[in-house]
């Protein structure tokens, strides 16, 4: 994946966020504070504007720009988490013209999420989608696989983030951050296809 394709990937992701904005916030209602879609859409818009204002000339520049936009505009828990992902991506692709090792890239993103949020697998956070995605990437992941990973957050009981306040009542709801992460991976897979 080169700069142009990576840009198309992120553009696709931002469009998916905008499209699913209401649904993402709806998912956040029963187990959080109903703002995840709006938080993410605010960030996506800012990121697009920043990319328009200054066209990046490298993969590193692209990821850095998006990371900074998300950091300063999303807020909430997901802002620093997604922001850290993109800053880790930027670090990973330093000097690269094409993404040489996608698995390493996504692993660096997951690592950033875990370092920041200190969640482990099974706590009903985006880690529950990132972790299996990174694991499966080497052997090949399909859109259906991603769908299944997102749905698998439904029966989990949240012990991290706002959803932890409702404890057992979080069971039976898809985790919104996992859903938006699913959109991120789907955009990636579609761009490669």
């Amino acid at each position, binding site marked *: 994946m080169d700069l142009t394709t990576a840009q198309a990937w992120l553009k696709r992701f931002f469009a998916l966020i905008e499209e699913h904005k209401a649904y993402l916030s709806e998912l956040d209602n029963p187990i959080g*504070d109903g*703002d995840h879609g709006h*938080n993410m859409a605010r960030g996506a818009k800012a990121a697009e504007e920043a990319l328009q204002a200054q066209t990046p000339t490298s993969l590193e520049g692209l990821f850095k720009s998006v990371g900074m936009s998300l*950091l*300063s*505009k*999303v*807020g*909430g*828990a997901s*802002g*620093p*988490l997604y*922001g*850290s992902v993109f800053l880790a991506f930027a670090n990973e692709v330093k000097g690269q013209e094409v993404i040489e090792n996608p698995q390493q890239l996504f692993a660096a993103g997951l690592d950033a999420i875990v370092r*920041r*949020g200190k969640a482990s697998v099974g706590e009903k956070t985006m880690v529950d989608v990132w972790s299996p995605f990174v694991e499966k990437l080497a052997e090949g992941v399909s859109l259906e696989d991603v769908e299944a990973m997102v749905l698998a957050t439904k029966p989990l009981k*949240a*012990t*991290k*983030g*706002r959803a*932890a*306040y*409702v*404890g057992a*009542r979080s069971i039976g709801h898809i985790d919104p951050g996992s859903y938006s992460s699913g959109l991120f991976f789907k955009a990636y897979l579609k761009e490669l296809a």
Partner: protein
Amino acid sequence: MKKILNAPQDVVEEMMQGMAEAHKDIVHRVGSTRVLARNYEGAGKVGLISGGGSGHEPTHAGFVGQGMLSAAVFGDVFTSPTPDQVYEAVKAADKGAGVFMVIKNYTGDVLNFEMAKDMAEAEGIDVDFCITKDDIAVEDSLYSDGQRGVAGTIFVHKILGYHAEKGASLKELKALSEKLLPEIKTIGLALAPAIVPEQGKPGFELADDEIEFGIGIHGEPGYQRVKLQPSQAMAKEIYDKLSKALQLQAGDDVVVLVNGMGGTPLMEQYVFVNDVLELLKKDNVSAAKTMVGDYMTSIEMAGLSLTLMKLKDKAWLDALNAPVDTIAW
């Protein structure tokens, strides 16, 4: 929705401007950032900052001034501030001895403040922090992110602020916070919800004759809904839980804070504190200091919270009683 405002999306901006103008003898706005800092220089002292979502006024900016916070950072209503804005507060507060951050335990706040710490340290500013989690309402909260930072946080602002003013180092403030935090416990209750201006509708629903114990300052769910009951019964329900958590015994000294959530008259707050003080007397626990009023609100939520701080160290009382120059302490 019936509120005194111009446009919902401008509330935080205009409130900040209003505070800065009205209290320009104490605070000023740092450029066009989301930060209010104190006018008092405090050269060479550790800076003390706090902040979080707006809607909890007078927290946090009301506690900025000599002897308390150096600066406060404003998020949108009920939304944590972003790292770049927290970093602005760190820069404004740094007078060469580093900056200590008091963070309330919400994932968003913790993550954004920690990122700001990384940014500041990359620029050579020493930063340390403590995380307040005085709300003991959520069950199993020890094993999750469930313990929220609520009204008891203002004791931390005040006591650390006193020591920062006296010249305590970052390390000393950290050590003090570790002693202090476990001795502060809070539980809230709600009679009616708040409305976030940009959402325009209540965050939760309560029937006319219902109250909810354990509610958070953003309307997070509590642990029990019951029919409206006399103040004495509400006071007992909460006091018993706090007393047990603090392992209060006859002869102990406590500081009492009855905190209005924004929509509860002082008249009712005093009725409630009277019941709390009765319960303390019965247990032979002495109230060394009692505070009543709106300190950490939840917009116009009707309800209140009770905080007890066990005075393990008598010096904490002197730190609380020392005069400060702030808008709201």
